[in-house]
């Protein structure tokens, strides 16, 4: 009997080839397992009904949560990490992970980026035409690392992680933090829509947006879909994807646009073609997201609408 090829077959096979003996996944084949790679692999395997594989990733994550509630980057780097958001996202639907998710969410809620000293903020307020980077320094969302500034991706991921958690498991301050995240993203939107890594204008020049950061920011802002900056960014994302050949950007773009109810058939065909052709090695995160994007159902982002 001839089996029909599923678009996800190659991708899932590529993902499984990266599984480490400890049940986790590294960012590339043969690399030590990390929280982010394992989390995304777990989400993809669960969507593919690979219960055993998904359970192993859950075990991996639950075994490695720190006493603070955060997750580390990996065994080799045991400090609390921005990757905590990915772990929460991966575990938020897992009944046996309820306590871990609640604990992790509380840690994430307390992560707040650094901002300028008071005098600088005053300067920003009164001489906005003299600044070198255009932004509102009063907004403090999420950083990549403790003691650094707010950036788009960690903010978007934290909002999505907190938005995925059963509201009964997180303190009421979650709404304040999600509002803060929305404020940051809307403050940093690029001219014409979309998001760079976190700035939109430096030294008199507009920065250009990236599809992957734009897709994550839009997913985090779904509640604000009526905001003209969100609508403009949806258009910008589709324009960017027209000539952007990469698994990560296409996969995140598809998952985002689909969550907004936009037809993604042509993008999905291109992602499938990319996987059929000779490409460059990509991260496990990109493999896992490609698997999710090619499925055409069970988009995990559909159920997540960070609500302030």
């Amino acid at each position, binding site marked *: 009997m001839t089996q029909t090829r599923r678009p996800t077959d190659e991708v899932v096979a590529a993902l499984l080839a990266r599984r480490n003996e400890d049940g986790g996944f*590294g*960012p*590339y084949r043969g*690399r*030590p397992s*990390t929280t*982010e790679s394992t989390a995304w692999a777990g989400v993809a395997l669960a969507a593919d009904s690979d219960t055993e594989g998904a359970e192993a990733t859950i075990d991996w994550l639950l075994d490695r949560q720190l006493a603070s509630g955060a997750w580390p*980057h990996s065994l*080799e*780097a045991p400090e609390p*990490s*921005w990757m905590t958001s990915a772990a929460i996202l991966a575990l938020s639907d897992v009944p046996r992970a309820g306590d871990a998710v609640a604990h992790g969410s509380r840690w994430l809620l307390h992560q707040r980026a*650094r*901002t*300028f*000293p008071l*005098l*600088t903020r005053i*300067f*920003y307020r009164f001489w906005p035409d*003299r*600044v*070198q*980077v255009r*932004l509102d*320094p009063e907004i403090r969302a999420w*950083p*990549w*690392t403790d*003691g*650094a*500034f707010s*950036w788009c*991706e*960690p903010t978007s991921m934290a909002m999505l992680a907190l938005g995925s958690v059963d509201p009964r498991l997180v303190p009421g301050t979650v709404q304040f933090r999600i509002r803060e995240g929305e404020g940051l993203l809307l403050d940093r939107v690029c001219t014409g829509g979309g998001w*760079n*890594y*976190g*700035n939109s204008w*430096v*030294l*008199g*020049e507009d920065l*250009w947006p*990236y*599809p*992957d950061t734009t897709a994550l920011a839009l997913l985090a802002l779904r509640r604000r879909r009526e905001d003209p900056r969100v609508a403009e960014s949806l258009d910008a994302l589709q324009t960017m994807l027209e000539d*952007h*050949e*990469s*698994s*990560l*950007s296409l996969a995140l773009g598809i998952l985002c646009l689909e969550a907004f109810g936009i037809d993604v058939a042509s993008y999905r065909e291109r992602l499938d073609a990319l996987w059929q052709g000779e*490409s*460059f*090695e*990509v*991260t496990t995160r*990109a493999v896992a997201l490609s698997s999710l994007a090619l499925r055409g159902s069970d988009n995990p982002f559909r159920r997540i609408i960070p609500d302030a």
Partner: protein
Amino acid sequence: MPDRRSFVRLAAGASAASLLPACRDEPSGPRWHTSAAVKPERSAVAVLPATYESDLGEVIRRGIELMDLDVRGLRVVLKPNFVEFDPDGVINTHPAVVHGTIEALRRLGADSVVVAEGAGHRRDTEYLLRETGIGFALRDTRTRFIDLNHDAVRRTALRGQYTPLGSLYLPDTVLGADLLISLPKLKTHHWAGVTLSMKNMFGIVPGSHYGWPKNVLHWAGISESILDINATLTSLRRFAIVDGIVGMEGNGPIQGEARPVGALVFGADPVAVDATGCRLMRIDPAKIDYIADASRFLGNVDVGRIDQRGEAIADLAQDFAVIDPFASAKQAAEVTGS
């Protein structure tokens, strides 16, 4: 008024400008570990003319030989600069230079060559490999790429104390190299003044630990971080080849304008190489904070201590535009070494 260094630290670190008073403490003593004090009596640098259409494998082989670098049997890590992509820009090390360097190293008997980079702005390495053309250069030469943003790491004590960081996670691929070759683009830099072989080492700091951009380094001070990272890499054997065939002037390292120079710069002393790169841009290296500081312990800036080989700098130097905060670095620039 703030000095330029503290101004830049706040502007870049928090991604915004500040007019706060300067807060940099002047060092009371050396801010580097004794093991990082490797400044030689004299350094050699070669400048060779080149175009992207020339046989770069041959030009680079000549450059390496001119510098008496023996690569036989060495495991070499090449660190180009591909931080971002702009179809109309000249941001990155040209793929022909990467291709030519790989060819030259193999002809000269290197045991292995890998190309490694941890892009500073974008997480989408696949996109950068494809669009910059470097991925195809690697495919043509059957060369492995290591994404330094996601390499296995070791927490490494810094051999400098310019920043308060103390240690950083650094990638095994770099720390395990027999020879680390920095392969930067010749560019001006809006926060640091110039970006050459030393600033290129920001790309070894893994994004998966420090983010995109690597903002911890900005808060710690860009110049200071360059110094601490390069002080720490004195544990390795190093070399540099600067792609100055077409450089970037003005608002570098991303949004500046292309400026043809037609030169490759070779050398084992990163400070001397960067000083020469500055002179090719008619920028005074002694007025670039981190190069001036690096000349105290890492290498030579003075033309009198640099043996110039190959082409005369004066024959190739171009008057690169810089943004206002670095205008004074242009005023006293003198082109020597011919």
